[in-house]
């Protein structure tokens, strides 16, 4: 495999909801790099800040969400990298969808009910490539829909005439229609049944091989990520607590929280293992525990955990630069 080239670098990214004393920090100092052509999974419980991160990266946060720090460096193919946070409104509009598109959590409601599928596909092409002739736009949209398994005659359908799975496919097709470098998928299949979920994801992997985009895949379903993604980052209480290649994380997770997540679903193959959940409930953002935010629920917690915040770093016990963890347990403390 060639040297990995970054396409989206998120650095020290923080998001607050509300200002001043009332504000809560939903995403804290997240640093995450998405490489060209890879699928990076981002997993965590509800309220861990996954979706907030996705909205923040594209500056789509609804008020009272505020990006309080950090940068998002985008590397266009064959161009100079630039910071998405520093773009003007006009540049931002040009950046959105053409470079980074999003498939949203509520994909069922992502289509405007009063416009035809074609109208909604074509207006995005028109906004970004105004010079393209109407025939070429239609051809592009039809081709994209065909790629996601929707026949061209469905172009003139209204969203309510499509099933949930079809709407999701339309949204994925729409996300790819401008051939962006990065596609952010925010729990794109949560509203669908398992069979449809698999079908759509398999199709997505196939499309990625053909079109060569990178995916930031956000879900609470770690079992899905283990199967489909190249690397996985685990988020807890607004921070990344562990990052590793999928196989490494599955076989040998280092953070007690990742371990807990992995133990909460059954393996299809291999020896039987005990299923156990994670005791307690997700932390309250208004009153985060001191030190490591996971320590009240952690079975291995000791004194240091409640005093100091562990930093994400390469664990000393595994001298492997591809993985990092934020934990005080022996062997997991960053080297150096």
């Amino acid at each position, binding site marked *: 495999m060639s040297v990995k080239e970054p396409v989206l670098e998120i650095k020290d990214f923080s998001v607050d909801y509300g200002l001043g004393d009332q504000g809560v920090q939903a995403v804290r100092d997240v640093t995450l790099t998405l490489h060209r052509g890879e699928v990076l999974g981002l997993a965590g419980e509800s309220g861990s800040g996954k979706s907030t991160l996705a909205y923040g990266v*594209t500056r*789509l946060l*609804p008020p009272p969400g505020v990006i309080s720090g950090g940068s998002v460096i985008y590397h266009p193919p064959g161009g100079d990298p630039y910071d998405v946070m520093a773009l003007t409104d006009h540049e*931002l*509009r*040009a*950046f*959105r*969808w*053409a470079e980074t*598109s*999003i498939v*949203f*959590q*509520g994909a069922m*409601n*992502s*289509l*405007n*009910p*009063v*416009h*035809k599928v074609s109208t909604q596909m074509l*207006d*995005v092409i028109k*906004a*970004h490539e105004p010079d393209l002739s109407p025939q070429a736009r239609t051809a592009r949209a039809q081709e994209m829909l065909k790629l996601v398994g929707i026949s061209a005659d469905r172009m003139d359908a*209204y969203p*309510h005439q499509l099933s949930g799975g079809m709407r999701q496919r339309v*949204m994925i097709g*729409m996300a790819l229609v401008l051939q962006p470098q990065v596609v952010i998928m925010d729990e794109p299949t949560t509203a669908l049944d398992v069979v449809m979920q698999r079908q759509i994801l398999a199709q997505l992997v196939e499309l990625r091989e053909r079109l060569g985009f990178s995916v930031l895949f956000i879900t609470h379903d770690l079992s899905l990520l283990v199967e489909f993604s190249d690397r996985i980052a685990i988020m807890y209480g607004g921070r990344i607590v562990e990052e590793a290649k999928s196989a490494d994380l599955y076989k040998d997770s280092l953070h007690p929280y990742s371990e807990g997540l992995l133990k909460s679903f059954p393996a299809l193959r291999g020896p039987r293992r005990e299923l156990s959940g994670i005791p307690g409930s997700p932390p309250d953002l208004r009153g985060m525990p001191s030190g490591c935010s996971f320590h009240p629920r952690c079975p291995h917690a000791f004194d240091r955990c409640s005093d100091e915040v562990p930093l994400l770093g390469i664990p000393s016990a595994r001298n492997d630069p591809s993985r990092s963890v934020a934990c005080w347990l022996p062997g997991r403390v960053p080297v150096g």
Partner: protein
Amino acid sequence: MKFLLQRIAFYLFTAWAALTINFFIPRLIPGDPVTSLINKYQGQISTEAIQSLYVLFGLDKNASMWSQYVDYWGQVFRGDLGLSFTFFPTPVIDILQQSLPWTIALVGLTTLASFAIGTGLGVLAGWRRGSWLDGLLPVTTFLSSIPYFWLGLLAITLLAGPDSIFPSSGGYEPGLVPGWTPEFMGSAIQHSLLPAITILISSVSGWILSMRNMMVTVASEDYITVAHAKGLPEKRVMMSYAARNALLPNVSGFALSLGFIVGGTLLVEIVFSYPGIGYNLFQAVGSKDYPLMQGVFLVITLSVLVANLIADVAYLMLDPRTRKEG
């Protein structure tokens, strides 16, 4: 298409029911128009004349209810609504033909203007939530709670007068002959200004409020976020995604208010002595003019029905979800 036919059938049925009620009401209330007409002429009418008046008004006691009903329908279709007492012997249909254009011009145009202005402001206020436009809201709430006629009285007291450019009553300068002359039109417009402003001020706020609230609701929908994420121009997101969807409830409200154009602003016409259909009704009630009242009710009923039909059709065109296949 099938849906449309169903609606039309429904409205035809409603129209039939309304006309039938319109037929029975004068026959059920105590006293009858002929008696009141006789009273008006205080015994100067002979017995034969009285009998022929009964026949003329379709109240012939010798004819059965059924044959009266059949005659009534025949008259309705011929546009014969009887003779007015107040303006005896002018046919009711002529009076309505004279006053209807005044009402439609005054109230119709102001309702359209108020809907357009109110919806436009509502779109902006809803889209730029938190800006200075939000300051409009308490003002509009206050204005919308003032009744038309009271605002009209206030306007007459404060603005109209011998030296003012605003006449306090009438539809045009009394000396002028109605026609499409610039002089007459100018006078008519001058006379309509004050009532028009009154109606506009008290009705525009309702549109602003409802449109603004719908905009705020729609703006938090997922498809608006998607539209932003798609990098569409702000204006297109606002108009084609947010306003387009937020407009739907306002359209039905608008159609309903169209129906009330004819009857609902009765009080404004009374306050300004405006020669419209509401003023007719006022005169008719004052002099127990049954045929004229019946005629006015008929016009109001039909206009409400037509307005509702228009609303249904508009909804069909605007919202694909209401369309049924096949």
